[in-house]
């Protein structure tokens, strides 16, 4: 529902002399946001940064190829010349392209709008009303940091993934970025402010002992497996895959396959652990969660620094999330429930919704309280769901486990007896695991009301405890399957503008669920309820 973009033609030629970067002095733009209307350029050092990036990337790709050809017996000189030339050509092209982009891109902050335009061959103008700006995120990779630059992503926090929902200034000087953030998020910038924002007391800062939770997350198996994949892939590129396999085979020629598997798994785990520790350091280095003028700020990152903002007004609750590994040792992560999180930050594959890495659960809860300025999770009466919900889960678990076993058994009958053995092993191993998960899933199911919040808890293995602001509930979806109908259950979804759009209270007793919804948002559901005719005894 953004108003249409005005079709005013922006000025074509710029007064800036060629080659000089028109970095505005902060004083001129910050004193009055109404300084406005002046088109500014991005920082020209972006050209160097892209040149280095592409050259590095090109070299990274070229090296295995050169190695492959040289091994294959080709004379090294022409190969080096060709691939070197290719890298240079690629770098030049990319540099020119980025220079063109820089040359023809302008942005400006007017009283009403933030605008970014590109005007060469293809003209584009992105425009966001300033009063819709909800996030100003700063992300800088090591190269940008080398030049003192950062990317600025300005977003409206609009759930609709429309074209106008965000724009990225790629890049501007760091000081300018900080200033843009202050100007855009404050709306009324105070006069005479220094460029260094006043940081309030931190809600949380990194405690290095948290790093012990890093290896027990999902990253360890992922990185461990990826390492083997990478070895195979790269050796395939160079054309030495077979000799790698041969080499490993020779190495373990005298040992049994069991030992080989164990050793490989151990190596995988080791790589995974080291990798996840490294990832933790890179992601959470200098982590600091603060609140400045009603905006939550997360700053973190070793090589790539990120500085993510979240306006308090967008906050709709928190999710205290206990991933399986962390849960076993009493730790939890704090995720935020806020509007407009669907759009991920560019080039930042960490979850922007994570406010705090896994930490001891008491601490996580305290941070959640500080973030919400309320304590919905303390003393909330989380009510369990009817046992019918447990029976459903056990049934699913049995179907899943026995289904896998049945498929293996059928294949075994048709193909080979090895699969038959796998089938009974699968049945024997999977059934208890599945039932344990089902029971845990049922035990975790729960809901409650606590002050201004609706609390719902769910998860098998990993566990989410979500506190959703009742005022943030913008509708209800009540769903019932034939099986739920028979056992008197419903699944209720509170719809919201935050995160994925809804939070479920699964398999709750029909009466209990309807009462919960009625109470959580008074008046909304009431007109659509009717007493059941007392025909039933």
């Amino acid at each position, binding site marked *: 529902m953004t108003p249409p973009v005005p079709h005013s033609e922006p000025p074509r030629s710029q007064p800036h002399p060629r080659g000089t970067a028109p970095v505005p002095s902060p004083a001129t733009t910050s004193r009055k946001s109404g300084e406005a209307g002046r088109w500014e350029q991005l920082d020209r050092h972006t050209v160097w940064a892209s040149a280095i990036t592409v050259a590095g990337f090109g070299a990274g790709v070229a090296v295995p190829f050169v190695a492959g050809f040289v091994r294959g017996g080709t004379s090294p000189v022409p190969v080096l010349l060709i691939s070197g030339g290719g890298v240079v050509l690629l770098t030049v092209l990319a540099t020119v392209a980025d220079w063109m982009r820089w040359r023809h891109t302008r942005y400006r902050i007017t009283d009403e709008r933030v605008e970014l335009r590109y005007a060469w061959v293809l003209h584009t103008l992105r425009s966001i009303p300033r009063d819709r700006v909800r996030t100003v995120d700063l992300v800088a990779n090591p190269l940008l940091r080398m030049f003192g630059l950062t990317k600025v992503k300005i977003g409206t926090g609009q759930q609709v993934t429309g074209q106008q929902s965000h724009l990225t200034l790629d890049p501007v000087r760091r000081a300018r970025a900080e200033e843009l953030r202050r100007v855009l998020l404050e709306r009324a910038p105070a006069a005479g402010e220094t460029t260094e924002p006043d940081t309030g007391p931190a809600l949380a800062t990194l405690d290095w002992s948290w790093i012990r939770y890093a290896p027990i997350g999902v990253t360890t198996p992922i990185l461990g497996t990826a390492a083997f994949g990478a070895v195979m892939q790269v050796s395939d590129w160079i054309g030495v895959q077979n000799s790698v396999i041969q080499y490993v085979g020779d190495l373990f020629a005298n040992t049994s396959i069991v030992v080989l598997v164990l050793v490989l798994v151990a190596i995988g785990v080791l790589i995974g652990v080291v990798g996840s520790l490294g990832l933790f350091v890179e992601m959470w280095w200098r982590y600091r969660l603060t609140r400045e003028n009603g905006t939550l700020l997360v700053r973190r990152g070793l090589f790539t620094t990120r500085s993510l903002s979240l306006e308090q007004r967008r906050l709709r609750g928190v999710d205290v999330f206990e991933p399986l590994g962390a849960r076993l040792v009493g730790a939890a992560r704090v995720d935020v429930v806020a509007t407009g999180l669907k759009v991920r930050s560019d080039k930042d594959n960490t979850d922007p919704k994570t406010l705090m890495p896994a930490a001891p659960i008491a601490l996580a809860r305290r941070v959640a309280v500080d973030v919400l300025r309320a304590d919905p999770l303390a003393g909330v009466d989380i009510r369990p769901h009817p046992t019918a919900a447990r029976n459903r889960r056990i049934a699913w678990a049995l179907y899943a486990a026995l289904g896998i076993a049945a498929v293996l058994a059928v294949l075994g009958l048709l193909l080979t007896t090895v699969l038959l053995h796998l089938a009974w092993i699968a049945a024997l191993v999977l059934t208890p695991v599945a039932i344990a998960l089902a029971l845990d899933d049922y035990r975790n199911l729960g809901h409650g009301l606590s002050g201004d919040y609706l609390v719902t808890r769910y998860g098998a293995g990993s566990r989410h405890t979500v506190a959703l602001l009742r005022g943030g509930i913008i509708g209800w979806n009540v769903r019932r399957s034939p099986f739920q109908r028979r056992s008197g259950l419903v699944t209720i979804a509170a719809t919201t503008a935050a995160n994925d759009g809804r939070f479920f209270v699964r398999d709750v007793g029909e009466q209990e669920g*309807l009462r919960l919804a009625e109470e959580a*948002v008074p008046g909304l559901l009431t007109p659509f*309820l009717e007493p059941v005719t007392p025909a039933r005894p």
Partner: protein
Amino acid sequence: MNEVVRLRPPRNRVERRAVTYWLTNELATVAVPAVVLAVLALLIGPARPWLLLAMGIVLAVGVPYGIAVPFWRYRVHRWEVTEDAVYTRSGWLWQEWRIAPMSRIQTVDTARGPLEQLFRLSSVTVTTASAAGPLKIQGLDHELAAELVERLTETTRSNRGDAT
């Protein structure tokens, strides 16, 4: 207070014509693969028994489904617009009740496919700021749909704001 309650059905049924529309739609969906399989069976001699078997399965499953579901759906699909909220029920075996308060409605759209036009039907979609909560009312008479959209737009215009 502690009396037993349930969600009452929304007041309005959809247009009776919607059944015919759904029937046509479902049967056309079944007919297309069935015809394709039949033609293939005519052309490809060696695979004929298999293709005919496949066609038989498609018809045996599709035709009863295509005939039963529209009537069932007609019994379930209902809608209601009050001063404060839009309320729908949809589905057939799996049923869903959706409620959106008037104050949180962001957009109201109508859509009419070619087949719907033939039956002078429209569907109205009401969206909120939630990524998961559009309310869709299918099978409305298109004049009624236009009226409804106008009314909803009118009502929602008066309450501005983010609706988040």
